[in-house]
């Protein structure tokens, strides 16, 4: 009995000192930093909240899984699509598409292909060559000459850094690197060279994240300064804000948005300094059946886009 009590009393102070010791270790263990997120996903949380995929018209998606890894998808999209015009007015042409897609998703290999009725193919390939080296390819191929794009990426993931080399058509080359500097802060940079347009650029990025918030900043010599801040107020609610400034063309855009992830639905909304408000609702009607409502109201350009859709599977 005497033997039982002393270990208990000695165990508690040892625990406290142990946690204090590990906190100290966490603070100073620069050799064991976590791997940062990929450079292109730097603004991931802000993009998820502030830039939902709004659409106009009807969208119907049907996804059918044939086995764990392989699935087919059928989509019908009907609605006005914008065509780029020189004047300030937006020109919209009503179009209807059927899109067929095939996905093969394996831990080592991912193949996603989508083909539209007008012959456009959208292909994405991702393969793991080794534990640390990944090859990705992305292509949009059309029947029109000189309108197709393709891009290859080679990613190398180190213990606390990631590096990527990109090659695209039109002699587009790029490289980027991101490194964890402290457990919360990661810094990175990128360079690119576009042969066809004879342009080159260099940019720097920083990302600071904790459990409750993520702050990112990106500067490039093409004149872009992009800052974003996302605060996770609770499990269900996130608020995000974004600031984009182009110091060469003196263009500024700021936006504030929210993201509510509730049991049956996900509601995202944002308001912009260009007088544009967006809202996107995904409601889960039943298992595998989702109803989508999308609205984008641009008061400056007087462009009102409303869309509704259904996703099955």
């Amino acid at each position: 009995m005497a033997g039982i009590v002393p270990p208990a009393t000695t165990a508690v102070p040892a625990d406290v000192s142990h946690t204090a010791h590990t906190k100290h270790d966490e603070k100073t263990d620069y050799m064991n930093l976590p791997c940062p997120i990929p450079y292109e996903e730097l603004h991931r949380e802000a993009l998820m909240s502030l830039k939902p995929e709004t659409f106009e018209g009807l969208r119907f998606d049907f996804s059918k899984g044939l086995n764990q890894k392989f699935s087919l998808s059928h989509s019908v999209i009907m609605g006005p699509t914008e065509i780029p015009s020189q004047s300030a007015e937006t020109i919209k042409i009503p179009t209807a598409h059927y899109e067929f897609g095939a996905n093969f998703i394996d831990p080592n290999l991912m193949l996603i292909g989508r083909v539209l009725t007008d012959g456009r193919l959208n292909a994405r390939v991702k393969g793991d060559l080794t534990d640390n080296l990944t090859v990705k390819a992305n292509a949009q191929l059309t029947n029109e000459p000189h309108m197709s794009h393709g891009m290859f990426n080679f990613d190398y993931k180190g213990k606390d850094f990631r590096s990527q080399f990109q090659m695209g058509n039109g002699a587009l080359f790029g490289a980027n690197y991101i490194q964890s500097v402290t457990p919360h802060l990661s810094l990175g940079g990128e360079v690119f060279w576009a042969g066809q347009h004879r342009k080159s650029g260099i940019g720097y990025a920083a990302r600071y994240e904790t459990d409750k918030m993520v702050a990112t900043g990106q500067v490039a010599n093409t004149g872009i300064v992009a800052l974003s801040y996302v605060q996770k107020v609770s499990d269900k609610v996130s608020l995000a804000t974004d600031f984009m400034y182009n110091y060469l063309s003196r263009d500024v855009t700021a936006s504030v948005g929210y993201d509510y992830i509730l049991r049956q639905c996900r509601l995202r909304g944002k308001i912009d300094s260009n007088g544009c408000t967006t809202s996107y609702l995904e409601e889960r009607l039943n298992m595998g059946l989702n109803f989508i409502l999308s609205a984008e109201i641009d008061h400056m350009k007087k462009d009102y886009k409303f869309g509704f859709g259904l996703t099955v599977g």
Partner: protein
Amino acid sequence: MASRVSLKTKGKGGKGSKGSDEKSAAQCLKEWSTWAMKKAKVATHYGFIPLVIIIGMNSEPKPQLYQLLSPV
């Protein structure tokens, strides 16, 4: 000016005769790589989705052929 013009035509004539006889290695490589990229683009455009379907149909557990077409 007349002498300049005649020099220019001489230069062009000289280059023309050289071009018809032999091409530099870099030019050859460029032409072949352009030809290869064009063929690769056509092959990818027509063959990517069938390739994904073939890889998917041969993965475990093997799905049946009717499952490709039926909406169930």
